[in-house]
């Protein structure tokens, strides 16, 4: 199994600049600088079929193509590495092992879009990853792979590393741009879309770190190679899946897109931990509706997961065993979202604490049938929020209502949490 992102990994340490270069790193950049036009680089990424790895799954190349060609003034590329979706840690693992694929991918993206100055927006807490990136930037500058006249060409570009100070909403691309500008990170209205009017009013592309890190492989080996990496004909490329919770072996694995959920758990994760049976999981981070046993055969790719009623999201799979109370799990998630709401719009600021209160009431054994109706209504109502935070927050609530209605009702009927573990304190 080919692993374009993890193939440079060294056990217990980061790959060095020299090792990365000796193992075929920067070959794609050299190829582009010597003989590919920006349009050809962009076309290769479009043809590869790669969909964004940050959560929304928008095709990366298509996003680039939305940047108007002949607009005067600077345009910008931002790498979104504000990885704060609970259950997600793939970008940290990637960058702690190897910052160079991302840097090379960013230079290629800048070349394709015509960007002179790019940013990496990385979250607080990823200090090792940020240090690797800063070191990588300095090494690339030194080697002529970044800065003025890259590899002797007429193309120049710079990359700045911006370390944030901890706030989930900064990962929303328009909020991220406000954060980067030094403003309070409330989301902006769309349209205008960032590709037309983004950072400091200029055309801007925001891509996830994993998406950008995959660009060198696509340029070096071609779009067909990338497509062929996936398990199914519809999917394209490998994906970093990071698994946490009650499996035997948690970790971040680079696996073909389209691998069935059950195979990921039974294979790289070594099944469930001793004494645990699979009950449910969040298939793609904290904002995705739960999957249950009936979904273990679903290929982990964007469309099949969506068709089955959830989202591939970030690839952060959080697994729960038979003793987990799904009401309490959902409550933990809504508490997170209520706290992380930026407060900008009313549905999110007022709605999430209310949903949280209703779940608390049910979990405490004081719920009634009416509370279920309220939850149902709010799954719909919070779609009216300004950005994707509140609808995302309602993903697990939606999953709870669809898959665990019996368990939810049992809380109401028995007047207490029926689960035995100390996870539920009531």
């Amino acid at each position: 199994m080919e692993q374009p992102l993890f193939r440079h990994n060294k056990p217990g340490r980061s790959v060095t600049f020299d090792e990365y270069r000796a193992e075929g790193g920067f070959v794609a950049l050299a190829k582009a600088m010597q003989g590919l036009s920006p349009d050809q680089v962009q076309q290769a990424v479009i043809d590869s079929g790669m969909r964004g790895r940050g959560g929304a799954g928008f095709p990366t190349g298509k996003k680039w193509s939305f940047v108007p060609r002949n607009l005067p003034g600077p345009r910008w590329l931002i790498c979104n590495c504000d990885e704060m979706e609970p259950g997600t840690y793939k970008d940290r693992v990637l960058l702690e092992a190897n910052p160079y694929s991302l840097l090379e991918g960013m230079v290629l993206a800048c070349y394709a879009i015509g960007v002179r100055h790019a940013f990496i927006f990385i979250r607080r807490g990823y200090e090792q990853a940020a240090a690797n990136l800063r070191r990588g930037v300095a090494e690339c500058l030194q080697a002529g792979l970044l800065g003025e006249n890259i590899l002797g060409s007429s193309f120049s570009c710079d990359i700045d590393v911006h370390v944030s100070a901890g706030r989930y909403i900064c990962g929303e691309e328009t909020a991220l741009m406000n954060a980067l500008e030094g403003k309070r990170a409330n989301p902006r209205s769309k349209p205008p879309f960032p590709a037309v009017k983004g950072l400091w009013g200029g055309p801007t592309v925001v891509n996830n770190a994993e998406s950008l890190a995959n660009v060198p492989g696509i340029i070096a080996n071609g779009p067909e190679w990338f497509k062929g990496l996936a398990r199914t004909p519809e999917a394209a490329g490998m994906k970093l899946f990071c698994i946490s919770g009650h499996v035997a072996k948690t970790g971040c694995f680079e696996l073909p897109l389209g691998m069935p959920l059950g195979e990921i758990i039974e294979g790289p994760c070594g099944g469930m931990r001793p004494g645990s049976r699979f009950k449910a999981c969040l298939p793609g981070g904290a904002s995705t509706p739960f999957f249950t046993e009936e979904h273990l055969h679903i290929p982990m790719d964007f469309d099949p997961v969506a068709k089955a009623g959830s989202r591939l999201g970030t690839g952060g799979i959080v697994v729960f065993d038979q003793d987990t109370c799904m009401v309490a799990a959902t409550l933990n998630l809504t508490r997170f979202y209520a706290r992380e709401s930026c407060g900008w719009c009313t549905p999110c600021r007022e709605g999430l604490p209310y949903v949280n209160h209703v779940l608390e009431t049910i979990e405490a054994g004081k719920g009634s049938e009416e509370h279920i109706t309220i939850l149902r209504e709010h799954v719909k109502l919070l779609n009216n929020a300004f950005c994707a935070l509140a609808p995302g927050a309602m993903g697990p609530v939606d999953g709870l209502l669809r898959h665990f209605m019996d368990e939810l009702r049992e809380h109401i009927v028995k007047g207490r949490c029926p689960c035995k573990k100390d996870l539920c304190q009531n």
Partner: protein
Amino acid sequence: MIPTQLRTRLEQHVAAAVTSREAAVQVMKELQGHYGWLTDEAVGEAAQLLGLSPLQVEELATFYEMIYRRPVGKRVVHVCDSISCWAMGGESLLAQLAAHLGIGPGETTGDGMFTLLPCCCLGNCGESPTMMIGDNLYGWLTLEKAVEILQQESRSMME
């Protein structure tokens, strides 16, 4: 007043930015590093450096989880309370740590050493439950292991 050396460095950050306020988070962090938390004086200094009003700095400072607008201990213990850590017993770890330190979440120990703060996902979900102290991320925690880490952190501050 902040030391000249720090002021010069902060002025350099501001000068290197595309617009001066782009450097706001960096400036607030370094001032916090100097004072221990973002004091009223630090907010004033930041405002002056960034060409903002103190209120504009306040609006940013209160937005971020890792900018402290109240006094904190020498070491701030951020214990993750998000879903993966919750599934692995993070809730009871936080309660046990609070009992061990004799403080509630959000409080500081009497000797001024530790402030205990629950926080958002630290991106260490594969090694949950997890906590962060300073720039150090700690995973696979048990109460015993966490207490040992606190002792180490405490010793490193004494030296």
